[in-house]
């Protein structure tokens, strides 16, 4: 129960920080920092994919709720949630992800960084391609995806190091 409340508080925090802080950071060059996919990686591995997708949908919708994007963030986050098991499989094909908590798997933060990078790339690909939906802008869209992925990954990774890794070692 306490864990459950913790996840809900985490979801609220990540949505609010995305909306009130990271959305206001506008660097230009089309860079858009989106750190909220991080939340899906923190969810336990054991969690059923259906649950993860529904959570992704709800978080995405609550971000859309503030940013006038009407479902764009939700669709990108559901897409990346659907690919979550595949991302884990690509990174570490021999692990058994059906058991154990995240703390075991993210033992090394360098591995987490790679997972995060791939996961955010998947999310950003869907997001920016859906958003522009125009072949004429493809070159600029890919520039956008590249730059935003790098920026989002680094910031999300710092958040992970600062707040999430610490609580895990305490436990």
């Amino acid at each position, binding site marked *: 129960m306490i864990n459950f409340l913790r996840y809900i508080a985490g979801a609220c925090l990540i949505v609010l920080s995305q909306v009130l802080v990271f959305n206001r950071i506008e660097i230009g060059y089309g860079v858009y920092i989106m750190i909220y996919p991080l939340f899906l990686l923190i969810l336990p591995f054991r969690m059923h994919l259906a649950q993860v*997708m529904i959570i992704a949908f709800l978080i995405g919708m609550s971000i859309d709720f503030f940013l006038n994007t009407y479902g764009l963030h939700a669709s990108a986050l559901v897409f990346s949630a659907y690919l979550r098991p595949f991302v884990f499989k690509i990174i570490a094909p021999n692990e058994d992800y059906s058991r154990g908590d995240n703390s075991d798997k993210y033992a090394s933060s360098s591995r987490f960084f790679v997972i995060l990078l791939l996961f955010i790339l998947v999310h950003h690909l869907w997001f920016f391609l*859906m958003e522009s939906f125009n072949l004429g802008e493809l070159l600029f869209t890919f520039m956008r995806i590249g730059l935003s992925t790098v920026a989002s990954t680094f910031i999300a990774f710092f958040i992970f190091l600062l707040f999430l890794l610490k609580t895990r070692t305490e436990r």
Partner: protein
Amino acid sequence: MKNLIAFFKKFQLFLLFALLELVAIYLYVENYNYPQVKFISSVNTISGGILEKSNELTKFINTPQANRTLQQENEKLRQEIEHLQSLLDTIHFKDTLIAEQTYQYIPAEVIYSTFSKRNNFITINRGSKDGIEEGMGVFTDRAIVGIIHSVSENYSMIKSVLSSKIYIDVKVENNGAYGLLNWDGISPKRGSIDGISNDIPLKKWLRVVTRGSSGVFPEGLYVGKISQLKYENAKPLWNIQVWYEEDFRRLSNVYVIKNNHKKEFLRLDQSINKEEIGR
């Protein structure tokens, strides 16, 4: 049998995925052009309220800047009043002037805005309670900003000129050549004009203003300057880049334009269209 169940399970997940995607994409596509569902955008009470509170925390940062622009605008308006007053003294129409006012301006404060997304929206702290309706134009003392996209009781949302398919009708001030304003998503400082034939002579740094043909904006509001001119590939058109006058990174106070003759205008427009179809 076991395989079948496993297969079904996978399929089930895909179905859920497809369902969630369909809902999300449907909402996005349906609402981007014509907003219908208000509760999932920033004009609802909860998200509008949170954004307004957070704006109150940060707005002191650009207060000096906002003050300065308002002061400059005041000065400009005062000069204009004096000028008009002197004209009025010579012709005596003082009483009828107020009743004839076509456009009214509703001042509003920006509580949330973006400028580097593909489609940018601005949330303001005035809504239907203050007489704002969908489709009204918005501008600042410098230049036009966008068009009201959706309205709730206390908040409304502007689709800024930094959006695809914004299509505001603009013209080049000195010769009246007109086209539609568009944005390619690259820089918040530059937009483009579509549809001006390249046999019309144009020069760099000509002023671009609103055309005022749709009743959304009055004629002659400043948009920006022509910053680049090229021939469009394989079309008899100009490829025009406009340098926006408005700095979208520092929006704080805007005016919403209420056209008192809008209904009359629309009725006229409709009757013209009917006549054309009848022919």
